[in-house]
């Protein structure tokens, strides 16, 4: 078969929709997004996944109905929220696809199909959405290109190669727009990469800065590595960061250390499993917080913490709230110089690795028998997927509560070996068939939604899913609601944000692992979410089906965007 074009090629389909004027996206709009739009992945720079709209609320949510749906034509895991700007909606799919829709009618405006190298192999064939700036839409290609598209037409404005897929680097996150720059980070923690975050000029695609998440010899933090271990030390940067406009600080998370077994790379291994505070203009590292040193559990801490100001134990804190994969919930502080201070940490799921946490620094100590090593098998809870993987928690500022899509009652065991490094190939120190995954024998539930009162430091309610994990990002609204999919039964549900009472649900086309978003057009509030099961939830489901009699083996694949509004 002859391939006509091997790298990016845009396939633009003629539009039948009436294309309306496009409102340029500015720094000011991104800093204060209008309630009727959803301009970035988590709704605002603070990462709240919160909509200030309240037309749909606890009293009327029972009348929520689908108003239109849209088949994406793709299988695999759909993980992008609809990004909405004054009537334009942008959604992304696996296989490097972007679609622009009329957010009111569902008419397709344009479609972009990126094309990667034929021999590219995808560990996570997914995409987590676009970012916006001025009159353009930015999307990261799985195989490593960053592409700028004209928002009105989908035409390629520029493209540049960020990641080298031949050494296992790839991209799945939504970019972050910061003052005319498009900031991205790479995936590849299972392939022995050295992570980095990089910023590109939104107009030209020229690189403005690039910051490695692992210091080179001589740089601060390099003393936490032995010899050449840092070169393949991991700390990928595979989720979008959050941004503090006031201090021009980007908070970006880093992944697991590589290979997975700490004894193969002695030291704390900065900045793996950390949050980095970066200067927005230069990418310079201003501060960091490492959740667990010398990671040996594949516990990425890739999600940036939410920027939340709170009063805790009588003190007002310019804070960060981090729901960690390691099973702990962290209260942190944004200090003026960019440093990250520790306030408190509490387990939110069963965690049996930490023996203690230093109350001043947040540094944990470990039970040695819970640390897997080379030729040393150890079990630990939660499993490598953590108390929460990448799905977004949400913060409701009206209630001072956060909502966590958690998974409990699952554990793992690992035994490491030394694997020959082959560029671009799985290099974790353990083969897939030897990754141990277990569930608690008498477990009554697995997936959860937990609501926590941040100021009080207490869990206030919990929803338990007896027959599923929860892989769904949460949306909370000023209407006092919490929306969540994430279960393998294809349901999408609404809860009372105060009490956790379930108020509404609908069976959709596939499992929902994409973040929901909300927007308003012509006085009508919409809730929109893509259904499309795949990637890690699907893999984990297969393992669970082997462990638990009667567990459904598979959830049907195939992407569909669902858009809901109140029945007239």
């Amino acid at each position, binding site marked *: 078969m002859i391939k006509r074009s091997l790298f990016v090629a845009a396939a633009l389909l003629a539009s039948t929709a009436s294309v309306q004027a496009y409102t340029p996206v500015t720094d000011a709009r991104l800093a204060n997004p209008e309630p009727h739009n959803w301009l970035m992945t988590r709704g605002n720079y603070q990462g709240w996944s919160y909509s200030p709209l309240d037309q749909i609320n606890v009293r009327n949510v029972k009348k929520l109905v689908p108003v239109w749906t849209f088949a994406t034509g793709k299988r695999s895991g759909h993980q992008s929220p609809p990004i909405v700007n004054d009537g334009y909606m942008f959604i992304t799919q696996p296989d490097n696809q972007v679609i622009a829709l009329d957010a009111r009618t569902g008419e397709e405006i344009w479609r972009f199909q990126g094309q990667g190298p034929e021999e590219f*192999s995808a560990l996570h064939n997914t995409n987590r959405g676009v970012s916006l700036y001025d009159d353009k839409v930015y999307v990261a290609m799985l195989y490593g290109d960053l592409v700028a598209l004209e928002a009105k037409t989908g035409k390629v404005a520029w493209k540049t190669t960020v990641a080298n897929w031949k*050494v296992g680097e790839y991209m799945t996150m939504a970019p972050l727009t910061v003052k005319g720059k498009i900031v991205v980070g790479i995936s590849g923690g299972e392939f022995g990469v050295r992570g980095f975050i990089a910023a590109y000029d939104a107009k030209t695609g020229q690189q403005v800065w690039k910051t490695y998440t692992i210091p080179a010899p001589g740089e601060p933090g390099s003393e936490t590595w032995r010899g050449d271990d840092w070169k393949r030390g991991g700390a990928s940067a595979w989720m979008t960061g959050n941004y503090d406009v006031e201090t021009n600080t980007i908070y970006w998370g880093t992944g697991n250390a590589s290979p997975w077994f700490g004894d193969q790379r002695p030291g704390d291994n900065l900045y793996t499993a950390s949050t980095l505070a970066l200067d927005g203009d230069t990418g310079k590292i201003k501060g960091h917080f490492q959740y667990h040193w010398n990671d040996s559990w594949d516990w990425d801490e890739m999600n940036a913490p939410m920027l939340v100001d709170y009063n805790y134990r009588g003190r007002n804190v310019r804070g960060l709230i981090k729901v960690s994969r390691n099973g702990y919930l962290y209260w942190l502080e944004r200090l003026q110089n960019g440093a990250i201070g520790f306030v408190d940490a509490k387990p939110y799921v069963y965690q049996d690795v930490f023996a203690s946490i230093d109350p001043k620094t947040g540094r944990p100590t470990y039970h040695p028998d819970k640390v897997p090593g080379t030729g040393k098998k150890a079990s630990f809870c939660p499993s490598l997927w953590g108390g929460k993987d990448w799905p977004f928690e949400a913060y409701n500022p009206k209630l001072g509560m956060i909502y966590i899509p958690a998974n409990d009652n699952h554990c793992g065991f690992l035994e490491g070996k030394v694997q*020959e490094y082959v560029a671009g190939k799985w290099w974790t120190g353990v*083969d897939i068939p030897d990754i141990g995954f277990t569930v608690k024998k008498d477990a009554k539930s697995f997936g959860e939604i937990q609501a926590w009162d941040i100021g009080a430091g207490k869990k206030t309610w919990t929803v338990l899913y007896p027959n599923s994990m929860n892989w769904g990002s949460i949306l909370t609204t000023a209407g006092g609601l919490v929306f969540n999919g994430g279960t393998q039964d294809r349901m999408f549900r609404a809860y009372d944000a105060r009490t956790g009472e379930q108020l509404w649900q609908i069976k959709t086309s596939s499992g929902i692992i994409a973040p929901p978003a909300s927007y308003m057009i012509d006085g009508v509030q919409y809730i929109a979410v893509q259904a499309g099961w*795949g*990637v890690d939830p699907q893999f984990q489901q297969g393992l669970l089906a082997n462990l638990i009699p009667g567990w459904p083996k598979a959830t049907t694949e195939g992407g569909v965007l669902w858009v809901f509004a109140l029945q007239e």
Partner: protein
Amino acid sequence: MGEHERERQVCGCGLARREVVLGAAALGATIPVVAAAADNERRPKAGDRLVHSMGPKKGQPLRVEDLPLGGPGVLAFPMDPSGLVLDGSRFNEVVAVRLDPASLGEETRKGAAEGVVVYSSICSHEACPVNMWNDYEKMLVCSCHGSMFDPREKAAVVFGPAPRRLAQLPVKVESGVLVVTGPFDGRIGAVRAA
């Protein structure tokens, strides 16, 4: 599967070259020049021999006795009669497993020799390397999402998201070395737009 069976990185340089093919053809360049450049990317055919693709024996002929009876498998590339290893495309890498000949299905046996079966190591799901081994079930395992393939039955999918079996590469044994007797009996790689 142990570290000695892991494959080495194959450059994808063929992609760039094929871009040149079209450009060159448009300019009226002769095809043979291009064909020569792509020699190490062509798919295996009868007469090629298999060589280890990684580990201490990398580049050396793959001999039946290199394969533990009952698995795990060993990764290999074809080598043409001139001694050129066909590693210009990662889609040429294969996994060889030695099994009890009596355990092989009838169709599988046609392409096997002395119990050795050889399959494409490129998964039909997302094109990841099938370079791991489940020793309890004696199955080939993909390194991305754990799809399992039965080496006794044409590498049929027995678990996981892979939609299709792996292509078999028929072989014979000559002086203890594995020699290809024909092309892959199916397509290589994942089906996707991008």
